[in-house]
């Protein structure tokens, strides 16, 4: 311990400063959104025993036992279908895999099932047939294989029981007490913090062990990774970095996608400036009107949450709905985009969605690109424009 007796204060100060700089650099360099080829395992490569995907996690204890943590921090145990019930966990925590009958609430969850190629396991949804744009779901509902269980806030539990699901993927934990009574395990697929880009891409790897579709999940991840590489390569030398906002105003309440959300990370990756990059928290986080308006002053592109049927038919319509935002940059001189109705149900086409967002940000490097998932809002509604021109005549 003699070294401590000769600890000189000047040396300490220098060492302290140098160490802080080095360690800070190490902490800052560990970019969670970086993807790499090694991240998506190919065939024959050993899978990691533990995989963290945002707030989800998979822990492979043995070939006969996998422990998972869902978005609400609940622990579940996956065991083979014929295996005996483990003694150390409650029955509602145990999921027998591969799962053969699933009820799903969320559009993204259902899209992920499609990405894994297990859409035939879907037996119940919370959206009626006329609101579906996915052909397999429509056909399944027509054939009676997939049941409409009612709106998420008023599920028909008798109907749910009839469908005999082995697993429920939900964003609404209020159903869990009833599912526990029915001995049906549930996975909460929403998270307290917004899903980052890596988690969005890898969510398929979280659901894969439930269906023994790890290879398909890896292939999906590799496909998305390839599209990200393409985006990086195409946008590498762009001259202009547009300023982007993603959110909306409802009466006096402002909600935006935070910087840690996948959209915020994608905008940064595509050589653009996300106006809420510093905001951290849940998806649709509420912030002050002043901040939204300040960030909107010099923004170029605005992605709204609303679809056309919710009032986002034109810039004029949006400004009429929310007079507060009528002076923001995208409404005055920039571009505004609204998601098309099938956007939320297209999570299995995540690579195309990412590419489309990049094409919106940098049309110059995607010549001739046709939008499939978003619509650019015109300055005014076509009918209103026509009436205006009639009036002028």
């Amino acid at each position, binding site marked *: 311990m003699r070294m401590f007796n000769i600890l000189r*204060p*000047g040396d*300490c*100060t220098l060492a*302290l400063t140098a160490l802080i700089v080095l360690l800070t650099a190490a902490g800052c360099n560990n970019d969670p959104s970086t993807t790499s080829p090694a991240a998506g395992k190919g065939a024959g490569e050993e899978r990691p025993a533990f995989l963290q995907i945002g707030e989800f996690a998979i822990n492979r204890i043995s070939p006969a036992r996998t422990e998972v943590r869902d978005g609400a921090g609940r622990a579940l145990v996956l065991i083979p279908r014929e295996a005996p019930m483990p003694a150390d966990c409650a029955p509602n925590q145990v999921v027998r895999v591969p799962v053969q009958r699933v009820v799903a609430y969320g559009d993204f969850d259902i899209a992920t099932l499609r990405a894994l190629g297990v859409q035939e396991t879907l037996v119940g949804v919370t959206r009626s047939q006329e609101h579906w744009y996915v052909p397999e779901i429509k056909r399944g509902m027509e054939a009676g294989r997939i049941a409409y269980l009612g709106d998420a806030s008023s599920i028909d539990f008798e109907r749910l029981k009839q469908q005999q699901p082995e697993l429920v993927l939900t964003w609404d934990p209020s159903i869990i007490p009833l599912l526990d009574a029915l001995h049906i395990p549930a996975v909460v697929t929403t998270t307290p913090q917004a899903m980052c880009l890596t988690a969005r891409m890898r969510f398929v790897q979280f659901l894969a062990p439930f269906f023994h579709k790890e290879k398909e999940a890896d292939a999906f991840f590799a496909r998305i990774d390839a599209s990200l590489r393409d985006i990086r390569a195409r946008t590498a030398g762009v001259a202009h970095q547009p300023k982007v906002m993603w959110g909306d105003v409802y009466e006096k309440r402002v909600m935006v996608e935070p910087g840690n959300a996948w959209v915020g990370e994608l905008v940064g990756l595509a050589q653009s400036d996300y106006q809420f*990059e*510093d*905001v951290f*928290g849940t998806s649709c986080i*509420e*912030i*002050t009107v*002043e*901040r939204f308006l*300040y960030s909107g002053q010099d923004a170029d592109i605005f992605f709204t949450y609303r679809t056309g049927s919710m009032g986002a038919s034109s810039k004029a319509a949006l400004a009429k709905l929310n007079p507060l935002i009528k002076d923001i940059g995208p409404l005055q001189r920039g571009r505004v985009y609204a998601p098309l109705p099938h956007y939320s149900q297209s999570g299995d086409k995540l690579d195309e969605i990412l590419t489309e967002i990049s094409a919106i940000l940098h049309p110059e490097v995607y010549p001739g690109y046709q939008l499939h998932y978003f619509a650019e809002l015109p300055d005014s509604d076509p009918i209103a424009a026509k009436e205006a021109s009639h009036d002028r005549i």
Partner: protein
Amino acid sequence: MITSHTAFQIAGTLYTLALLVALAPGKRPLPINLPLAAAVACNLLAVGLRCHQAWPMLPMHLGPVALPICLGLLYPFTAGDCEPALRRPAQRILLAVIVLLTALALCFPKDFYLPFLKSKTLLAHGFLWFGVVGKACFVFCAVWALTALLPSRQPHAILAMGRSHRWAALGFALWTVSMFSGELWSYLGWGTPVVWEDPALTLTMAAWFFYGCLLHLHLTKSWSQTHRALYASLGGLVMLALTCLPDLGPFRSPFGL
């Protein structure tokens, strides 16, 4: 109707005026009480408006806006029974720190998060306010230590360091109370005294160990006075910057609305 941001802009202008008055050359110092008092009043209004807009919940990231008030209110303590040779440089350094903090808070505000329901408890408010006053004491500690380092103040360095030590001890006590309030709040609200969701807690702990170390150095005199002064002054300013970091946001023009 004046907004919180406007009131803070006015406060910043008045703090700068007070600093300029304090820096004015001359044997007889000009009175700075008036601009300083006006600045503190405007600052109080800014903080009061933010608290009013959030009450009974806690306004988020209020620290950098509230800290100049505490420094301004404690400013008279640089004058009381103090050698004149020490008083002036200490006051000038203190005012410079106040102006710098105000500029940082104006240029890098983080006032866009809405308050959350779990902050509706006295423990949350205690965590904030004991922390702010404790941080103000740490600033005073750094200011007196810097004064002790000035070559022209060497005959009075021991006095300055004595004051520095007292402010460090008081700041440490208040910082500890703030941490305990935060831990009790965390236990009641989340079931554990340390919730690993807010990175700022590590900087709070870092400051606690930093000043704990400083107190041990003072009491045991294991380092020379000059080295202790360097630790308290430069190290203290670095810790101040780090503890303010979680409450600062992206750059925003201070002249905007």
